[in-house]
């Protein structure tokens, strides 16, 4: 690879190709890529041949085979006759459910505790400090088992369950609340509710616009109440109440009707939220402390209250430091949700990388799929957080 006009003066035209830095870097990168690809190819071919030789079934055909086992929490319809592919989706949704709710709650806990730790009130600051130290220094698995066996496990049996107004029941089978029963015409009511939400959002935008233009926002709360509550209720009455409330009733061993939160889900969620919340609290505290004190003083000088100064001046600047480590905590929470396997919560790891793997014996395929999915979840979370971080970046003028 000779380059016209760039020939070295010392040995014109006779330089070793590897002496050229550009050629060298391309050459070594090509060698590396070819080596990696070849190793991957050999690994796949060899694995296939060896599994065949050992007569261990291979391929993804098993995803269509009927699973034959039951799962006690499914967000989509599932029965024993459904396929392993469906089991995969059920498990993935259960993982997403606990992760998403967990991330939201852990963020709230983390911000509250992190700010509380900086409080000038001695008691609040020390209580928040104690919380952080206890939670982040106990192993997560231990905390999950603690909540599951020592707290939720001691609740009474369904027949003696604690009840609130005969419609919410708390027992060692979980928390059961009334659910909605949808009849004919329910969609009209739902449409009215959506309309109310849409109209409220539009009013909110109008109000913000007005504030920018004139400095005074619209008074909105009565319109919001009317649109969000009044409108759906009026439609509900007009359509002769197609949406009813179904109360749980104790029949035989368990409750029938209503919506139930499994104790496994509750224990896992509480443990993930309190544990990750402690780490987030420290991140938040560090972020806030990184904003120079003069910023707060300037805010006070402008007449902002402590709350407003925190919300408008300190937190937006702190967020730039908070978001990257916060992303790591979100990823940790999602991955830690696989500890569900210890208490029988049917997440992806338990039903797919556990039960399905064992019933089919196809370890390599299933572990590869599961790894790919956790990777995909993590990368998606990272991408979202990076996008948010880019938006929060210091706008330099």
């Amino acid at each position, binding site marked *: 690879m000779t380059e016209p006009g760039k020939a070295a003066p010392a040995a014109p035209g006779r330089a070793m190709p590897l002496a050229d830095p550009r050629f060298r870097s391309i050459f070594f990168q090509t060698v590396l890529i070819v080596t990696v690809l070849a190793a991957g190819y050999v690994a796949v071919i*060899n694995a296939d041949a060896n599994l065949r030789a050992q007569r261990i079934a291979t391929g993804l055909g098993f995803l269509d085979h009927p699973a034959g086992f039951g799962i006690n929490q499914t967000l989509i319809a599932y029965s024993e006759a459904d396929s392993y592919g469906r089991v995969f989706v059920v498990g993935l949704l259960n993982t997403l459910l606990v992760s998403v709710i967990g991330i939201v709650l852990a963020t709230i806990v983390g911000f509250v505790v992190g700010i509380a730790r900086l409080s000038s009130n001695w008691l609040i600051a020390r209580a928040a400090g104690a919380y952080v130290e206890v939670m982040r220094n106990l192993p997560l698995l231990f905390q999950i088992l603690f909540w599951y066996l020592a707290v939720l496990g001691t609740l009474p049996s369904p027949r003696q369950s604690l009840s609130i107004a005969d419609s919410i029941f708390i027992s060692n089978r979980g928390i059961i609340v009334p659910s909605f029963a949808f009849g004919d015409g329910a969609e009209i009511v739902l449409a009215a509710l959506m309309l109310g939400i849409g109209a409220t959002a539009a009013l909110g935008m109008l109000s913000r616009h007005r504030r920018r233009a004139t400095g005074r926002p619209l008074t909105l709360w009565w319109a919001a109440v009317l649109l969000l509550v009044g409108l759906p209720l009026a439609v509900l009455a007009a359509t002769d109440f197609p949406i009813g409330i179904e109360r749980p009733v104790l029949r035989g061993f368990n409750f029938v009707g209503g919506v139930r939160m499994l104790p496994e889900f509750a224990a896992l969620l509480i443990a993930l939220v309190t544990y990750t919340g402690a780490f987030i609290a420290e991140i938040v505290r560090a972020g806030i402390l990184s904003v120079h004190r003069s910023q707060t003083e300037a805010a006070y000088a402008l007449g902002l209250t402590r709350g407003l100064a925190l919300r408008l001046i300190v937190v937006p600047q702190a967020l730039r430091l908070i978001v990257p480590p916060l992303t790591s905590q979100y990823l940790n929470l999602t991955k830690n949700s696989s500890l569900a396997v210890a208490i029988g919560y049917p997440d992806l790891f338990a039903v797919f990388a556990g039960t399905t793997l*064992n019933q089919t014996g196809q370890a390599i395929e299933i572990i590869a799929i599961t790894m790919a999915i956790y990777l995909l979840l993590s990368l998606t979370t990272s991408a979202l957080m990076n996008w948010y971080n880019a938006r929060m970046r210091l706008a330099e003028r």
Partner: protein
Amino acid sequence: MKRVTLVVALAAMSTFVAGSVTAQTLKTVRDRGALTCGVSQGLPGFSTPDDRGNWTGFDVDFCRAIAAAIFNDPAKVKFSPLSAKDRFTALQTSEIDVLSRNSTWTMLRDTQLGLNFAAVNYYDGQGFMVRKSLKVNSALELNGASICTQTGTTTELNVADYFRANKMKYEVIAFSTADETLKAYDAARCDAFTTDVSQLYAMRLKLAKPDEQMILPEIISKEPLGPVVRQGDDQWFDVVKWTFFAMINAEELGVTSKTVDEALKSTKPDVRRLAGTEGNFGEQIGLTKDWAMRIIRHVGNYGESFERNIGSGSKLNIDRGLNKLWSKGGIQYAPPIR
């Protein structure tokens, strides 16, 4: 973590090592000087360690019988406690030589996992355990119940079949180890605990109040339990299979650990073939002539092992039922040594 290690080991082995299937298990065991045997993580009567780490039980006896046949020393066994989920992977990756861990023989396991079931050493069936206070007398009254089970087992599938066939609703909570399952049942998270009946008897002893539990009469499945080896090593397959058959034949011929010396002097042709004083059957499978007598002397015949560990001589007190010899009304039967 152990399971991840195993899976990675399986992946690595099958990925980078060509032709890892060896037909050399017996030689490997001899060279190592000990048998590695996969057992449960603690199931009274079948395989449990005592406070000094000595393993005992019905499944443990079988491991010791193989060691006795090879080394004339039942102590030359290394036990590897495995969960239901890990057991087959451990065998596939050659971490163990034989799996003796109340594993049900099914077509899928026999044909798709690269494994072979050598024999059925316990004919079992799946049942339910409930608290007496529930006042349930039949599994058919369990409609709507919450049921605890161990994941990675045939029981998880059978319970689904049973409730579906009888058009009953149920909730299943599946745990990864037997102890976690039992803990949840003890905490009344579920109304019933389901697994093979033999295990129900064993698990009941681990509960806080064994007397307040009852095992329902229904048997909802066939669970032929037996030792498992890797496919592709016929000699080792024969050693394991015939170790078991020797124990059955010994019981049938009335040879016990106490009557070994008389058996060696016996004039009956079938006893002489078992004792190795006639023919050289042991040498044909790579062992010694007195292979069967080594097993019987150190471990005992099938009936002795059964009664001592899980039958009338034990706390479990399980009736032999189907596991009686064929000549006594059961279905335990072994091909003759000849």
